[in-house]
């Protein structure tokens, strides 16, 4: 589960962001408590708290005292915007590099993307 | 084990709990001894006349058993009780309370036994005496005499109990702890010898030596000596417990 090079709290934060982006977590929706997170993933609750704190600082989540943690209303839009901004650096650049390693030409990629254009609509 | 409502009383509750659990645990053994003390002379009387008090044998063996049990408790319970979050001062107090109660209990049993035996032996016209031989004043001739003879036993048991705990604590404290036997055994036998009318039980050469030392001591001097020795023994035991590190577990 958690075996990337990045610290666990970062992975949790990234995962929550991904869930917001793909719609499994709705804006305004309630997030699992840190203890529930800790219990589910069998991690120290402080790690979950750290992730949540980051997300609150970034404005992705907000806390309602005594009630719980919620997804900010504008979280999805904001994250999507950030993702779009970094899409080319974070996704396409490594993709191009990997393709090169595998010996796939750019024109092959472009052809493939063209076939996908229909699917995206 | 007692429910520890407050830290203030748990050491007392532990002392008394040790007594009740010991009574329960050894009840079978005690019963067996009582039965034997009656059965054995009954059986032996088929072949020869009975001129020794069987209960005397039992009561004296009891001295050593009391010592061994007490020493065993200290040796095994010290690490367990420290692991359960008790201070060594509390543990020493609990052991002290147990020693007093246990000696009183077994001592009361001894007294009751001698009285009961006097009734039995009287009925069967047997000679209730601690030793064979014709020493006149060692024959128990009446209930009053039996009581007087047996009255010393609770104190004797407390003496042996203390000795046992001291040895147990010393052995736990250090590998060289066995050396404590060197002073403890002769002193215990000497005081016991002084307390009892008959000789103390132990290695013959040692008993002869200590008997010589306490020759002519009256009962009250002996009691005073016993009290002093018990007090010193208790202090030494407590000192050992208070300074005992808990041993590492063998890998």
């Amino acid at each position, binding site marked *: 589960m958690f075996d990337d090079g990045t610290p666990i709290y970062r992975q949790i934060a990234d995962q929550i962001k991904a869930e917001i982006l793909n719609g499994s977590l709705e804006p305004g929706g309630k997030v699992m408590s840190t203890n529930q997170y800790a219990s589910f993933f069998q991690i120290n609750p402080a790690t979950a708290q750290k992730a949540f704190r980051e997300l609150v600082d970034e404005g992705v989540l907000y806390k309602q005292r005594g009630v719980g943690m919620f997804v900010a209303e504008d979280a999805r839009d904001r994250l999507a915007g950030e993702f779009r901004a970094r899409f080319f650096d974070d996704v396409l650049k490594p993709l191009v590099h990997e393709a090169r390693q595998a010996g796939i030409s750019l024109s092959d990629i472009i052809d493939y993307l063209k076939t996908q254009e229909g699917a995206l609509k | 084990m007692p429910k520890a409502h407050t830290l203030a009383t748990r050491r007392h509750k532990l002392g008394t709990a040790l007594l009740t659990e010991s009574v329960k645990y050894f009840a079978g053994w005690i019963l067996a001894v009582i039965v034997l003390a009656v059965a054995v002379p009954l059986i032996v009387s088929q072949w020869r006349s009975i001129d020794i008090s069987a209960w005397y044998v039992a009561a004296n063996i009891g001295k050593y058993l009391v010592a061994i049990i007490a020493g065993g408790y200290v040796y095994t319970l010290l690490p*367990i009780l*420290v692991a359960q979050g008790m201070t060594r001062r509390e543990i020493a107090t609990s052991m002290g309370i147990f020693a007093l109660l246990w000696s009183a209990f077994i001592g009361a049993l001894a007294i009751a036994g001698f009285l009961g035996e006097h009734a039995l032996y009287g009925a069967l016209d047997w000679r209730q005496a601690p030793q064979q031989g014709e020493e006149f004043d060692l024959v128990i001739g009446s209930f009053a005499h039996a009581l007087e003879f047996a009255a010393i036993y609770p104190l004797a048991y407390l003496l042996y109990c203390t000795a046992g705990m001291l040895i147990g604590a010393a052995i736990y404290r250090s590998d060289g702890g066995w050396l404590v036997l060197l002073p403890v055994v002769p002193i215990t036998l000497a005081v016991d010898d002084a307390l009892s009318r008959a000789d103390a039980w132990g290695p013959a050469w040692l008993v002869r030596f200590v008997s010589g030392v306490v020759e002519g001591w009256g009962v009250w001097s002996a009691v005073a000596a016993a009290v002093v020795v018990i007090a010193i023994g208790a202090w030494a035991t407590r000192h050992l417990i208070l300074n005992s590190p808990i041993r590492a577990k063998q890998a």
Partner: protein
Amino acid sequence: MSFSVSLRDVTLKYGDTEALSDVTLTLEAGKIHGLLGRNGAGKTTLLSLLAAFRKPTAGEVLVDGRPVWENVDVVSRVALIREGGDFDDTDTVESTIETGELRPSFDLDYALKLAERFEVPLDKKVNQLSRGKRSMLAAICGLAARAELTMFDEVHLGMDAPTRDAFYKELLAEYMDRPHTVILSTHLIDEVANYLEEVVIVDKGRVLRHDDVEAFQSMGATFTGPADAVDALAAGLEVLAEQRLGGTKSVTVASRLDAARRERAAAAGVEIGPVGLQDLFIHLTNPDRTGA
């Protein structure tokens, strides 16, 4: 009311050997701390001092800011669970559990429930239990003690993996339910890494390193890929280990990786992997490395 832990200039000598030398260490209350060290490093000695099992030769041992030795208010709320437990072998499991009632905070119902859940039979004698069940009994006594400072010293030995999992799970649940201070001393570092908040590494009687677990985990990384690319990336960094298989090389370095280096790695086709806490521990306590 969790207990903090503080050792100041603590030394413990057994005869001529120094098991702990001049140790100064403070552990914050309410956290789960990992205590790691090789055999004989001094972990068990350290824990023994915290539980007032022994007195130090020099220095102060404070728990909850108070000296722990013979302090009934403190020791009654400190539990040290040693491997195999501190039991009377001739006692039954039930009787052993009931001994815990000496503690003011002991929860008998919880203990009995755990005994049932982990299948430790109440009527069996302790010396009839398998090693794993015995360790579980020790763990149960530790959990049910509901102490403010609970220390588990290699209590998992003898437990199989599913049993250990169940123990960690229960420990975490207890901890979240009732925040207190926990110290886990273990060899199975990677298993417990996710449960820890802080890590202390003890080596040859001294504290080698004490930090947040994240600091440890980001202390290094492993580069795996074409040999020259890996060498280029690792140039100038402290190398902890190297492995080569044909044209592929794997190098473990003790450095935080910044974004720039990560990008270079991706560009060069070099995979970046984590350094597990266990691997880091092995490297940090390697005698060749520490020069003794």
